C-alpha cells in the first residue's frame, strides 16, 4: 500500500493533500433522471481513490464527466486548479487526464506497440501530415524519446512479447493491460481506471495490480479507480468514496468503509 504524502486515515485536509483533481458539486441529468446529484471528489497528486457503489450509482457517469465525455448540468471539474469543465476529451487528454474504459477499447487495427505510440505522440506534430507522407516522421525531434517511453511501458506491462501482435486479436487480459499501458505511456497527472479487472481471472488481475503499483512507485499521479471487484479496491486504494443513487454516501479509508453500516445497507438494499 502506498502511503506516501497522504495519511492512512484519508481524513487529511484538502490543502495538505496537494490536490490534482477536484470535482465540485457535479450534477448530471438524463432526461428526467438524475444520474449524479451533487457529487464532489478530491484527488491528491499521489493519491489512489477508489469509487465503489451498487449498480446505477453513477460511477461511470462520474468518470465521463471527469474525462470530458459528458458535460455536467451543474458543477465544476478542476485540473491542478484550472477549470476544465468546458474542455474537450482530447484537450484534457493532452493535458494529462487519461482513462481506460469499462468495455475495453484498444485500437484493434494497430499493433500493441502502435497503440502505445499513438497515445504518446498525438496528432499535431511540427511539419504535419506532409512529413508523414514523405516517410520522414521518424526524424522528428522527440520521436526517439517517445519510442523509448513506449519500450519502457511495454516492459512495465509485460507486453514485450506481444509488441507486434494486432491489438484486435488480444485476449481480454492482455487487452486490458494494453489499455492500462496506453493510459500510462503519456505519464498522466490524473489516471482514471474504469473497471480495469472486469472479466479478468485472478492471475491477470494480480499482474495488472503489479504493473500499476510498479508505475506508481516512481511516478506522481492521482488515480481514480472504479471497480466492481471491491476486494481489488480495498487492496489498492488510500481512500474510498462510496456512491449511491448519484450522491456520495461515504468516504474514508478501506477499513472504515468496510465497517460503515450505511455502506453495508446500500449494498444489501
Amino acid at each position: 500500500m502506498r502511503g506516501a504524502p497522504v495519511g492512512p486515515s484519508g481524513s487529511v485536509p484538502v490543502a495538505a493533500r496537494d490536490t490534482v483533481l477536484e470535482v465540485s458539486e457535479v450534477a448530471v441529468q438524463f432526461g428526467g433522471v438524475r444520474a449524479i446529484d451533487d457529487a464532489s471528489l478530491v484527488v491528491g497528486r499521489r493519491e489512489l481513490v477508489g469509487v465503489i457503489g451498487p449498480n446505477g450509482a453513477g460511477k461511470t457517469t462520474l468518470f465521463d464527466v471527469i474525462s470530458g465525455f459528458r458535460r455536467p448540468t451543474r458543477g465544476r471539474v478542476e485540473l491542478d486548479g484550472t477549470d476544465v469543465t468546458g474542455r474537450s476529451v482530447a484537450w484534457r487528454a493532452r493535458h494529462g487526464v487519461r482513462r481506460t474504459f469499462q468495455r475495453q477499447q484498444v485500437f484493434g487495427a494497430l499493433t500493441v506497440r502502435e497503440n502505445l505510440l499513438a497515445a504518446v505522440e498525438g496528432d499535431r506534430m511540427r511539419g504535419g501530415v506532409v512529413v508523414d507522407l514523405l516517410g520522414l516522421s521518424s526524424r522528428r525531434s522527440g520521436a526517439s524519446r517517445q519510442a523509448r517511453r513506449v519500450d519502457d511501458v511495454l516492459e512495465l506491462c509485460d507486453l514485450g512479447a506481444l509488441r507486434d501482435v494486432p491489438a484486435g486479436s488480444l485476449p481480454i487480459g492482455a487487452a486490458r493491460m494494453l489499455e492500462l499501458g496506453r493510459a500510462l505511456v503519456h505519464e498522466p497527472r490524473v489516471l482514471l481506471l474504469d473497471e480495469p479487472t472486469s472479466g479478468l481471472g485472478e492471475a491477470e488481475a494480480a499482474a495488472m495490480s503489479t504493473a500499476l503499483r510498479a508505475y506508481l512507485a516512481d511516478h506522481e499521479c492521482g488515480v481514480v479507480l472504479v471497480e466492481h471487484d471491491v476486494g481489488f479496491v480495498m487492496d489498492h486504494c488510500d481512500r474510498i468514496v462510496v456512491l449511491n443513487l448519484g450522491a456520495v454516501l461515504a468516504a474514508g479509508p478501506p477499513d472504515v468503509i468496510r465497517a460503515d453500516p450505511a455502506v453495508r445497507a446500500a449494498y444489501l438494499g
Partner: protein
Amino acid sequence: MDKLIALLVSGAVSGAVYSLLAIGLVLTYSVSRVFNFAQGAIAFAATLLFYELTQGLHWPTVPALVVSIAVVSALGLLVNEVVFRRLAEAEDATKIVATVGLSIAIPALALLIVETAVDTFHASIPRGDNIFLPPGLGPSPKHIWHWGPVTIDSNQVIALSVAVVVSIGLWLLVNHTRTGLRMRATVDRGSLAEYRGIDTIAVSRLAYALSFGIAGLAGITGAPFLSLTPTDYTGILVVAAAAAVFARLRSLPMALVGGLLLGLAQSLFSGYVHLFESIPGLASALPYLLLFFGLFFLARDRRRIAGQVAEPVAADPVAALVWWRRLLPWAVGSVGLVVAFYVVSDYQLSLLTRGMALAIIFLSFTVVTGIGGMVSLSQASFALLGAMVVGKLVAGGMALVPATIVAVAVTALVGALFALPALRLGGLSLALSTLALALIGDTVLFAYKPFTNGSYGWTVPRPTIGPFDLGTDRAMACALLVVVLVIVWIIGNLRRSPSGRAILAVRSSEAAASSVGLSTARSKFRVFVISSAIASLGGVMLATVNGSVSSASLPAQVGLSWLAIVVLVGIRRPAGAVIAALLFVLSPEIIGHLTSSNRIQDILFGLGAVQLAKSPDGILTAFTGARTRARNRRAAVTVADMPVATNTPVASPVRAAGLAEATPILELEGLHAGYGAVEVLHGIDLTVLAGRITLLLGAGGAGKSTLCAAVGGGLAATGGEVRFQGEDVTVLAAHGRIRRGMAIAPESRGIFPGCTVAENLAVVLPDAADRELAYERFPALASRRRVEAGYLSGGEQQMLALAPLVVKPPTLLIADEPGLGLAPMIVDQVYDVLRELRAAGTAVLLSEEKASRVLHLADDVAFLTLGRLSWAGPAADVDVDRLADSYLEARR
C-alpha cells in the same frame, strides 16, 4: 391551373413509385440492418421478366404479373439466405459493397438469360435492352380521361392505385395480423422478440420476400414512365433512398409519405422554379439535396457521440512483415508489368495503360475506406473534378503539370468539405451522403457548360516531361507505373506514421482515440483530403491516357462499381487496389476469350457479393491469408501462455434436503458463457426446482445477467450444458426454449415500446379471452390498452411484461432484477406475482443485486462471485452478515 394539376398528377405518379421502393428499403433495413442498394435492380429484373412474358411470349397481363412478382420474391428469399443474413454483423463497407454487387449483377443476369434465350435457343422474344417507355399493366395504347381540368391516363391511374392498394394491404398486414405483429415486435426489439417466442429469422425471410415483391410491383407499374434500363432504375432508387431516410429507415407510413412528397416536390420544382435557370441541373438535383440534408439532420450517429461502441477492426497482416518481404511482391510485380508493356499487343497495352491510371484512383479507396474506415461513394467525382479542372486550364493555355497541381489542390479542398458530414455521420449514412454529394456534383457542377464544355468535354494532351515524351502508350504506362509506386510508397509511409496511427486509432474507437488526445475531426479531414487528392490525380492521369475528358466519361455511379471491385479484391492493402484496377480493365478482355457476352463481368460482381459475405476482407486476404493465419496461430500460442483464470468450482448444485419430490426444471452443468473474448461465467452448476424461487445474488458485474441470458438463449453458451425439463437445450435458439415453456423477464423492461399495450399482450397471448384475464388481474393495463407501451410508467411496463405469465404460468421463469429502478410499492407487486407463479408450480430463477428485500421470498439462494457460484443452499441457511462481507470482499 391546368399546368399545376398536370404537374401534381405526374408528381404523384412518380411519387407512388418512389414510395413503393422506399417502403421496401425500410422493410428490409429495419429487420436486417442492411441497406439494399439492389432494390432498383430487383425492380428492373421484375419489369424485364414481365415485359418478356407479355411482349415476347404474349402472356395475358395477370399471370405475367403474378409470375414476375413470384420470381423476384423467391429471389428475395434466396439472396437473404446467401448474402444478407451473413452480413448483419459485417462492416459497413462490406454491406454496401455486397448489395451494390447485387445491383450490378441482377440486371446483367436477367439480360443474359434473355440474350441466351434469343441467341442460343432462338426464342422469338425481344432482346430487352434499352426499351424506351415499355407498356405497363394497363391497356396499350393507353386510355386518357379528362375530368374538368384533370387529365389522367390509364397508366397513371394504375400506378397510383397500385401504390394505394399495396400501402393499404401492407398496413393491414402489419397492423392487423399476427405475422405483422411479429414483424413489428422484431423491428421494435429484436433481442426481446426471440424471448417472446418469435422466430426472427423467419420474420427476416418474409420481409425480404415482401420487399422484393413490392420492388417488382414498383418497377412494373413505373415502367411506362421510365426506360427499361438498369441505370434508370438505379436512378430512382436514390430518390427512394431519400424518402427512406426521411422515414429514418424505420417508419413505413413515413416512407410512403416521403416518397409521394418527393415526387410532388420534384415535379413542381421543375415546373415552376425558374429562379436558377442558369443552373440547369438544379431541379434534378433536388432529391439528392434533400437526401443530403435529410441525412445531415436526421441520421446523426449518436452511438459515436456517446463513444461507447468500438468497431472491431482486424489489423493488416502485411504491416508486420519485414521490409524486404513487403517490397518483394512489388518489385516482382513491377518488373512483370514493364515486361508486359513491351510484349503485349497495342490494344492490350492501351488497356494496361488505362489500368495504371485507374490504379491511382483505386488507391484513393485504400486511404479513405481501407485505412480511414469510411465508405466514400464520391471518388469518381473527385477524379472527374480533377480532370475537368485540368481540361479547362489547359484549354486556357496553362501547361499540363502546373494545371495538374492546381487541380489536385482544388480537389483536396473540395475533399475537405466532403469530410464535414463525416464529423456527424458514420457508416451507411456517411456513404449515402457522399453519394448524394457526388450526384449533386453530376447534375449541377458537371452539367454546367462553361466548366465542362458541354458534352464535348476538354482535350487533355499527353505531356512531355523533361526528356521523356509520353506520347506513346508504352512510355505513358511506364510513367504511370512510377506514379502508382510513388503513391503506394506514400500510403505505406502514412500507414507507419503518427498521422496514420491516429487515423487508425480514430477508426477503431473514436472515444478511446480522443481519450489519448487525438482529434477525430483532424483525422477525418486528413483522410478525405489525402484520398480526394489521390483520386483527382488519378482522374487527371486517366484523362491524359484517354486524350480527353467529358462529364459522361465518369458518372458518379461508376464510383459504386469501382468500390465494389476494390473491396472484392482487398480494400485494406494498396496491392488490392492495383490488382483490382488491372482486373477491371482486363477482365472484359479475358472473359471475351471465353464467351461473347459482355454481361459476365457484371454477373461476377454478384458472385463477388456472395463471396464477400463469406470472407469480408476480400479475395487477396483469403488468398494470402493461409500463411498469415499460421503466423497468427503462433502468436496466439504466445498469448495463451499468459495466465488465465482457472476453474475452481466452489458450489454444489442447489438441492435442499427433504425436497426429493420437487422436480428439477432447469439444470446447468459447467456452464461457460461470455461476450467475444471476455468469458463471464466460468463453469456454473445449478439446479432450479419446480414450485420454488431460486434467488441468484451477486454484486454488479458478477455475471447475473449473463447467466440469465445464457439460460434464456439470448447468449450462446461457450461450454457446458443447459437442460430444461431433462432436455438438452444448450444450442436451441431463444424462441425454441420459449415454446417449450420458459419465460424470460429480461433486465430492462420486457416490453416492445413501439407497440400498444394490447399488442404487447397479443404477442404472447394470441387468444383474446386470455388477454381479458390479464386485464382483469391488472386493471391499470385495461384502461390503457391502446397506449404505446413506451409511454407507460416503469411500474406499468413491468406489470405489462409479467401479465401474460399470470394468465399462462410458464414452467420456468427467469426474472433478471425485475425490481430495478421501480418504486418499493411496485416492487412488492412484482414479488406478489412471483409468489403467485410459485404457487402455480412455476420454477423461478430470480436474479437480484440487493439481498435483504428478496431474501424472505426465496426458497433457495445461489451466490455468484465474479462468474462462479461461491455459495448455494436453502434460503434459511443464509447468514446476512456473511453476505455483506462477500459483497465487500469480492475477490480476496
